[in-house]
């Protein structure tokens, strides 16, 4: 089975704004194989959430979508809502950023968690309750049995996020999209929830699209990474490579901007000059050209085509191979990229993340699972 | 017009109504109170644009004069209620403590008594009349404005710039005058417009019941009462006063909505 689970080609999303229609997603190509973990990284407003919503068909009514979204061989773009409803929660699921407001305050937990099951499998109340308990146990919600009839306001943010994850995975979807699932949580909780996510995904052989602005998170969590800027994917490749040897000037800037523990006093934080332009005001050609330190006239000609840097690693920069080697391991301290096979030591008690041999041949030697924390 | 349809439409209607009032002060087609029995219950014609009522009075003139009454009662009742209510609300917000609690409990309590009920009670005690109507509607407005100004002022008092003013030694009166009032003005203006509309409806209902202005002062509400008596002979009598009331209330409501959108975008609801 060589066919990818998700094949997105030339995805475009137009949104209405105060200044007319703007293109929020500009020709994004994305490919996810069965069981593969992919990260989408970028600042707020770069279009990553819009991309995710486009995949789910949950964009606002006023949005326009162009391009192709093929999921398991079927074209999703232009599909009517009824057909999308059958996919959502069952074959493709999504977890959102803000757990505090994501759950209906009037419904008991067992109903919230079992909702996809009741919708897609027609479960009755009793079976739904039993399933809900099983799901809540799987996400390790403490005292799940006593909490079946509890309500959302009785849970903390981290617990609500677990409930959301449990609900998303209820029907065993093939693809899970997680849009900044830990951004709203405390740092200590972030690792827990992310690790949970990783384990569940690996156990089920599910594909994962993880969206975040957090580099460290990405490094620990996914095998392949796409970097987005102003609606376009500017760099793509295995997580380890992109983070250790960033090619695109934007990616370099992102990584260089990470504060380093143990840096000598007086070292200034590196920043990327300028600000992300409004979508209506993007420069001609390369979207990053007005902030780039290596810009030349040819950069304004048009959106650069991807330039291959290494195996599976490409960047949309016409000067990518001319720029200085950026492999500076000390810059990526603290970003523990993946090594194949999950052979690293685990603290006791944590499930060992194993690559799932039955998940298909889509994985070409890149890694699966999550590293130790 | 496209951007502020409510404001414009409301403004037009209210302007019409005010024009009617102004015109009626100078001229009406016939003296409103002039009784002309031989010409009673006439249909609209060139001589009487909207016809005559059961006593031969010209309807158009009555309508114009009635506009005066509703304006008067509205201004008096809402004006008195707004002034006193706002004063109380500002006081409560500035002083807090037991005064605040007491005032707000009283306001809450009086919400159980709509204007009409108060008017009925006052009429029972003191007899019907225009002052009863004004007092009853005014009392209701007092409660409304006390509540609204108290909560709006309370929000302003907790803002940082007020804290800064207090740190500079400004006393409560100065802060209320210089900071609180300007910031709640928009809310109050919008509410006053809407309360005006409510007042017109209330005055009409009271006059209909015979508890409002006494004859010969004309009132749209009382015209409807008389129209109902002659429902079978002259059904058209019931139309005009009702339309007049509805248009002026509609105008004020739309104006209020439009003002709300204009004056404070934060207040504007999803339309």
């Amino acid at each position: 089975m060589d066919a990818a689970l998700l094949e997105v080609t030339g995805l475009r999303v137009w949104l209405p704004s105060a200044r007319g229609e703007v293109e929020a997603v500009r020709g994004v190509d994305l490919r996810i194989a069965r069981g593969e973990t992919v990260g989408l990284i970028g600042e707020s407003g770069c279009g990553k959430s819009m991309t995710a919503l486009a995949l789910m068909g949950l964009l606002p009514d006023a949005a326009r979508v162009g391009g192709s979204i093929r999921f398991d061989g079927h074209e999703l773009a232009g599909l009517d809502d009824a057909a999308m409803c059958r996919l959502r929660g069952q074959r493709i699921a999504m977890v959102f950023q803000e757990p505090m407001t994501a759950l209906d305050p009037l419904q008991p937990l067992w109903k919230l968690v079992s909702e996809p099951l009741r919708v897609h499998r027609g479960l009755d109340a009793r079976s739904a309750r039993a399933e809900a308990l099983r799901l809540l146990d799987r996400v390790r919600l403490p005292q799940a049995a006593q909490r079946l009839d509890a309500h959302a306001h009785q849970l903390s943010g981290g617990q609500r996020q677990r409930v959301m994850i449990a609900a998303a995975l209820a029907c065993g979807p093939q693809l899970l999209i997680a849009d900044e699932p830990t951004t709203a949580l405390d740092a200590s909780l972030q690792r827990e929830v992310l690790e949970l996510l990783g384990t569940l995904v690996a156990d089920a052989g599910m594909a994962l699209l993880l969206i975040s602005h957090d580099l460290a998170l990405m490094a620990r969590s996914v095998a392949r990474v796409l970097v987005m800027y102003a609606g376009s994917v500017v760099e793509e490749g295995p997580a380890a490579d992109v983070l250790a040897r960033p090619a695109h000037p934007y990616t370099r800037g992102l990584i260089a901007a990470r504060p380093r523990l143990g840096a000598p006093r007086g070292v200034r934080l590196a920043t990327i000059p300028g600000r992300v332009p409004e979508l209506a005001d993007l420069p001609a050609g390369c979207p990053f050209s007005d902030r780039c330190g290596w810009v030349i006239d040819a950069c304004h000609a048009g959106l650069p085509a991807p330039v291959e840097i290494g195996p599976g690693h490409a960047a949309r920069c016409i000067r990518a191979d001319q720029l200085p080697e950026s492999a500076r391991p000390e810059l990526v301290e603290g970003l523990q990229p993946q090594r194949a096979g999950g052979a690293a030591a685990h603290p006791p008690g944590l499930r060992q993340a194993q690559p799932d041999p039955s998940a298909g041949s889509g994985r070409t030697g890149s890694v699966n699972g999550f590293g130790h924390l | 017009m496209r951007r502020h349809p409510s404001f414009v439409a409301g403004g037009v209607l209210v302007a019409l109504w005010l024009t009617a009032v102004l015109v009626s002060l100078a001229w009406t087609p016939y003296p409103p109170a002039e009784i002309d029995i031989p010409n009673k219950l006439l249909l609209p014609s060139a001589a009487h644009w909207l016809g005559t009522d059961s006593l031969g009075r010209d309807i158009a003139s009555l309508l114009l004069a009635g506009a005066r009454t509703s304006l008067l009662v509205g201004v008096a009742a809402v004006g008195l209620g707004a002034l006193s209510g706002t004063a109380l609300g500002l006081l409560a917000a500035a002083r807090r403590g037991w005064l605040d609690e007491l005032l707000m409990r009283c306001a809450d309590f009086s919400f159980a008594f709509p204007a009409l009920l108060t008017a009925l009670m006052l009429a029972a005690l003191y007899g019907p009349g225009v002052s009863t109507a004004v007092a009853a509607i005014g009392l209701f407005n007092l409660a409304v404005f006390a509540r609204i100004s108290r909560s709006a002022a309370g929000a302003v008092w907790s803002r940082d710039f007020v804290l800064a003013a207090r740190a500079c030694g400004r006393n409560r009166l100065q802060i209320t005058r210089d900071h609180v009032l300007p910031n709640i003005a928009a809310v109050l203006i919008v509410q006053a417009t809407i309360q005006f509309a409510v007042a017109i409806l209330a005055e009409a209902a009271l006059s209909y019941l015979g508890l409002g202005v006494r004859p010969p002062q004309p009132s749209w509400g009382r015209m409807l009462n008389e129209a109902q008596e002659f429902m079978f002979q002259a059904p058209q009598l019931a139309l005009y006063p009702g339309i007049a009331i509805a248009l002026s209330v509609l105008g004020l409501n739309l104006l209020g909505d439009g003002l709300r959108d204009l004056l404070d975008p934060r207040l504007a609801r999803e339309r």
Partner: protein
Amino acid sequence: MRLDTTATPEALEALNRQLGLDQPPPVRYARWLAGLARGDLGHSVAYDTPVAELIAERLQVTLPLALVAMAFTTLAALALGVYAAARHRRLGDAGVMALSQLGMAVPNFWFAILLILVFAVKLQWFPAGGFAGWDDGAVPALRSLLLPAVALAAVQAAILARVTRSAVLEVMREDFVRTARAHGLTQRAVLWRHVLRNALVPVLTVMGLQFANLITGAIVVEKVFALPGLGLLVFQAIANRDLLVVQDVVMLFAAAVIAINFAVDLLLAALDPRLKAAHR
């Protein structure tokens, strides 16, 4: 004991003493309150009957009227409000909003008169006034209550429809609606399973507040249709300067308002578990 204009001063004095009218107002007020506490509503001077009896009799008209009007209001407002929210930014929404603006501007007694003109005078489907009484069965009684109930309900429904619409629109913007959609629910399913229940919270609150307006409206509407209910009773009592009756009925109204608001609070607590928690 009743007197006429030929009464002597002594007889007048005796009557005053009998009715307790020779006492200063505060004393009379206190005695009235004491009487209320005992459940004794006093005796009507004008009708020469215990007030309690009068009220019970008039309630037979006002209570059904209020209930039917409330039912009409709720049905119409919920249906129109949800419809408008579902057709947001399209013609349906604008239409409902325009209708509700009209509904709020129209005086309820004028609307009542128009209803009489059309349905009673022209079409003759319903009586133009008066109450048929319950003795002949429910149908004639309800027929005489239908037009009044519609007149009462119209204005309330206009306001409540707006409240419903904005409540539904607000709830549809909540994150948990998106979560439900991500689980595969259709828009309609989301509406029924999640939105309506949540929107009901502000709507119920407003319905409770509207009760006072319902009472006021009932007074006016009863006058229009000459229905012998509580509203008309207050009215006639004022004309007769029968202060006791007015006091008692007004007190009854106030008590009803308090009771209704309390009931609404209970309903809300049952609906929304967060409120239950707050009360603990």
